[in-house]
Each structure stands twice: as C-alpha cells, then as structure tokens.
C-alpha cells in the first residue's frame, strides 16, 4: 500500500474519474487498464504519473510478436551456442545469457516504480493471461537458474489498450478500468491551456470551434484527436495565423494547415467536396 496520490500535473489534465481509477490502483497495488480513442493521452498518463510522484518509469511497448515471457526475461540460447563453439569462458554460467525484461527491471527497482505496459491488445490473445500470476503475486521464477525474482515494491502498473482485441475476463477482473472519453470543449480548453499557456483567447476559441466542426463531419475515416489538435495549434502559432482566418472555416471551408488534422487523402477529399458544396449553396 502506498499513500501517494495522483492529481494530474501541470502538463496533463486528469478528469476526476481518471484520478479515481489511478489512485485506486496505486492504493491497492493493482493494475490500471486505460482504454480510449488513439491520441487521448493514454501512454502519456504513465509518464505523468511517474513524473508527478517522482518515480522511475519502465515502459514496455507491446507488438504483435511480443511474448509475455519477454517482459520477464529472455534466455539468449543462440549467443550461448556461439560462445560454446568459440570456447568462450562465459558459457559456463547460464546467468550470462539471461536478459532482464522490463517487468524484472521494475521488480528490482529501489523505489516503487511505475510500469507501463503499452498497447497490450496488440499482442496475442493469450498474452494477458500469461501475465496473471506475475502481476498478482509480483514474483516469478527463472527456470534456467532456479532463481526467484520478487518485487521489492509493488510497481504502479498502467496498461493501455486500443481495444483491438478483447482482453480475457480473468485478466480484467484484476484491473481497475478507465475509459478516456474524448474531452468535451471545456476540458479541451484546459488541456490546450496547459500546453500553450497564453494562447490568445480569440484564436483558441476559433481553433476549437473549427476542430470540433471537423470532428463532426460525417464519414471521416479518422477523426482528429487531441494530440492532432495540439499539433495543429503549434502550427497555427508558428505560422502566426490570425483568429479571423479561422473564422472563415466556420462555414465549412478548409481550415488552414489542415494537414495536421486530416490524416488521409480520402478525408481531405471528402472535406474539399463538402466545402465546395457549401460554397455553392451559399451563393
């Protein structure tokens, strides 16, 4: 148990329910599973939790080929085979060929660390099940050496998922769950405020309007997300675009520097068509 509490940081706006899920996870030492649209700051959450609590962060990014075992350790049999053929002395100690995984590193951390298991849904369907015992008991055994690794401190575990695969029930039962909803206009304003303090109010308002209008265009293949909005604002600031230029986009014309918001040519095309139709109707 730990008394640390996460309450957002100056760079990260956490909603009440998000804080609750994270704090429940911290207090009870159970993983927090975070789902949500891409670009809503799932991965960043772990970084911010680590930063605000002053804990080291261990990141484990999952790919479709990642095996649960790799988070614990890997036994490099090929290297050992090579060494044995070359007559290297290291070959006698099998421990020389055991490589620590991220979970192992987190377990032996001197202070309670934050462990991020990023995009767990990318891996095979059985992947989460293979980690149940390790995450429950916070220990595992290295078969090659017979050594048992036990966590010095229960890490704060944050797991993100893009919902590409359903996760097994047994795994879900052990987690706290949070779904990051797409922020409403008000929350978005505070998020932008955090990232671009002193952004001109007029520009911000117009930009947000334009942004939400783009999001509402039906049939977009990929709706722009928070991170794209932030990129776009960065561009707008760099180009020093006045608020008035954005107001034109009120009428469904294409917003300036739209490349930051729309990420595929079908969407851009659709958008241009809508803008064209609108201009024609307006006449």
């Amino acid at each position: 148990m730990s008394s640390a509490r996460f309450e957002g940081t100056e760079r990260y706006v956490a909603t009440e329910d998000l804080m609750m899920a994270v704090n429940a996870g911290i207090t009870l030492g159970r993983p927090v599973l975070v789902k949500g649209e891409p670009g809503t700051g799932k991965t960043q959450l772990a970084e911010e939790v680590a930063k605000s609590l002053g804990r080291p962060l261990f990141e484990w990014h999952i790919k479709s080929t990642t095996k649960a075992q790799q988070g614990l350790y890997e036994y490099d049999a090929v290297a050992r085979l090579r060494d044995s053929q070359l007559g290297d002395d290291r070959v006698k100690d099998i421990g020389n060929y055991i490589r620590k995984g991220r979970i192992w590193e987190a377990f032996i951390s001197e202070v309670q660390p934050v462990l991020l298991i990023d995009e767990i849904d990318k891996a095979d369907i059985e992947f989460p099940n293979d980690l149940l015992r390790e995450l429950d008991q916070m220990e595992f055994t290295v078969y090659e050496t017979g050594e048992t690794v036990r966590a010095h401190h229960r890490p704060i575990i944050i797991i993100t998922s893009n919902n590409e695969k359903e996760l097994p029930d047994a795994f879900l039962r052990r987690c706290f769950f949070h779904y990051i909803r797409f922020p409403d206009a008000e929350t978005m304003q505070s998020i932008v405020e955090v990232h671009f303090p002193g952004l001109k109010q007029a520009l911000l308002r117009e930009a947000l309007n334009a942004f939400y209008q783009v999001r509402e265009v039906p049939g977009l293949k990929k709706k722009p997300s928070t991170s794209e909005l932030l990129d776009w604002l960065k561009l707008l600031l760099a180009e020093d675009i006045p608020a008035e230029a954005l107001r034109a986009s009120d009428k469904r014309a294409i917003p300036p520097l739209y490349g930051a918001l729309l990420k595929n040519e079908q969407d851009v095309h659709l958008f241009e068509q809508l803008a064209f139709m609108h201009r024609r109707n307006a006449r």
Partner: protein
Amino acid sequence: MLAEFFFLLRKAGLRVSITEYLTLLEALQARVASVSVDEFYYLARATLIKDEALFDRFDQVFAAHFKGIEQLFKAFSAEVPEEWLRRQAELLLSEEERRKIESLGGFEALMEALQQRLREQDGQHHGGNKWIGTGGTSPFGHSGFNPEGVRIGGKGGNRRAVKVWEKREYRNLDDSVQIGTRNIKLALRRLRRFAREGAADQLDLPGTIESTAKNAGLLDIRMQPERHNAVKVLLFLDVGGSMDDHVRVCEEMFSAARAEFKHLEYYYFHNFIYESVWKDNRRRHAERIPLTEVMRRYGPDYRLIIVGDATMSPYEISYPGGSVEHWNDEPGQVWLNRLLRAYPHAVWLNPEPEQRWSYTPSVQMTRELMDDRMYPLSLRGLDESIQGLRRPVAVAPLAGAPEPAP
C-alpha cells in the same frame, strides 16, 4: 447495501465477479473514495465495469439503486445526506459550538445538532436569512437542497447540476450496430484455430537449438510446417429481394470473412435454401450447383454460416413448390435439415434487428429449424454466434425428409 447493488448489477446482465466486488470493498476500506457519492460512483465503475460499452447500463443500475438508497436514508438523515452534513458542519457551526457539542457527545451528537439547525433553516428557507446568506459558499445555489436527491455538488468549482451517472453519456457506445470490417474481422478471429499442417518448410528454431544442445553442440536442423488457421467455413448468403436493405453490412461481413479464413467457401441463395445454390449472381440461372454436390465436396469439419433475413412467406419454407423463383419438389426446410445434418456446427446470422424477429413467422420457423442458432448481424450477435458454432446443432428429424439419393 452493497451486496444488493452487486446482485442488481448481475441481474442487469453485468457479469461482475466476486473478486471485483471484494476489490471494491477493499478500496472502500482503504479510503480510496471518501464520502462523496461521485467518488464512490467513479470507484465502483473503475472496479466493476471493464468495458466502456457497458458504462451506460451500469449508470442506469447505479441511478436506479441509489434512488432507492436515498429513500432509505431519509429516516436517518431527514433527507440530508451525511457527506453534505459533514461539509456544512464547518460552515454552519461556529468553532465554539462545535467544541461544545464535541464535549457533549462527539460527532453523532454533532450531526444531530447540525440536522436540527438545518431543519430550522429549511423552515425559514423562503424567508431568506442564514440559508440564503450562505449562498456564496453553499454548493447548491439559491434553490437550496432538493429532497429528490438531485446532485448536491462537491467542492467549489464544480458546476454540474446533473449527476454524472444520470447524464448517461456512454449510451451511444452500447453494443452499437454499426460495424466496420475491422471489427467483424476481430470477431471472426475468435473462430481461429491454429494448427501446423502440410510440408515442413519452416525452421523450427527452438527445436533446432534444443536438439543441437542435446547433440553436444553439433548443429541439428529441425523443420516444421507453417502454422495457419485451420478453421474451414462454408458461407451461404441470401441475395436479392428483402436483403437489398442489408447489402452493406453483408458485404462487410463477407469481405471480413474472406480476409480472415483461408478455407472459405461461399454460395448464394435467394430467400431460402433449396436443392441448388450458385456462386456467381450474374449467371445464377445458368450455373447452379446442386446442394448435394456441395455437401459431398466439403466435409463435416466445415463450419456453416448462413446469412439471410429469413423474411418471406412461410410457404417458402414448408411447402413443395413454395419457392418464389422456381418449382421445388421438396420444401426448403427439408433441405436446410439435410444441410444441418451434414454440418452440425452451424449458425444463422440475421441482419434484421432482433426486436423485429418475433413479428415474422418465417423467422420463427427458421429459428426453430436452426435449433435456436439465429443471431443478429451485429458485433454482439457475431460474438454469440462464434460461441454457437462451438457446439453442434441438435437436428430434429423431419417427417417425410428422406436422405437425398446420392
């Protein structure tokens, strides 16, 4: 109180487990959520519900349950929730008063006194003295406390007037019918069964290492066949007529299935399955394939998926000559029955919404013929149908349905 809530959730179809329930209690004991209902709501949701599609249902149960609870609390707190009392204690009672009450009997007594004070004020509410005077600090504005139990408000800066769970913000996420191919693919992926079959043409690295090690370091190469999805699927698609409304979803389903299964055979039919089906819709009258031929060609290890709205006249199922397109010697149900006996792992996917099924007799008939294995063509339906495919259909022998002549 929480046990009741727990069972209510389960009754609402939310499969909350005992572990999760105990976790919630543990979290409450550890004071993760203190006294606010909002905090309790967030904690309960994070602990018990692991799918955002179910948030809406959870919100409904939560609202229903806690309306009841608030009524239970009436006797105790005279409609004033305790958490609010605690916060008001500092505002309404002076330091001296508090110390006095503390010396009289501690917090219980303090609560009682506070309640007394509030009741008095409630009486003078419209008169507008202290009660309204505290307007700046009171979290619920000039309208005062609402006995219905509508949100009391948290600390300052919290301007919401409606309870979070009553907003039901998650309603549009609930098992939405809109499904893209990606989602269908993922649903179908559940049907995967991996097996290594065929020629050994891949290097078996772990095997090679193991046998080399056993061989005292002398390389011993091991090969193995490629691992691939061994599930075989036979897909029958209804085309034309009433199915025209469902073209898009059927296309999506079809293209997803094509991408997902290596062994996928598909055939078309119109309205119901009779003695022949076809592969090419443009030449459907010229190139028909007898159903017996299909059954002979593909073994019983195929999984049968029929996609159709099963909406037609009941005659088309139960009478010879019922087909709208041609004269059929044997009724459609006989043919479906034979098909099911050849492929016991079968489901029927219906793109019509489930609520409408009961109004169409032919859907009911088909459903019975399918031993109840009819599922809506939504994500949820697909998921369930994959479950349905795991066990074989119990086919009742139909009267007057002889085996077809080979």
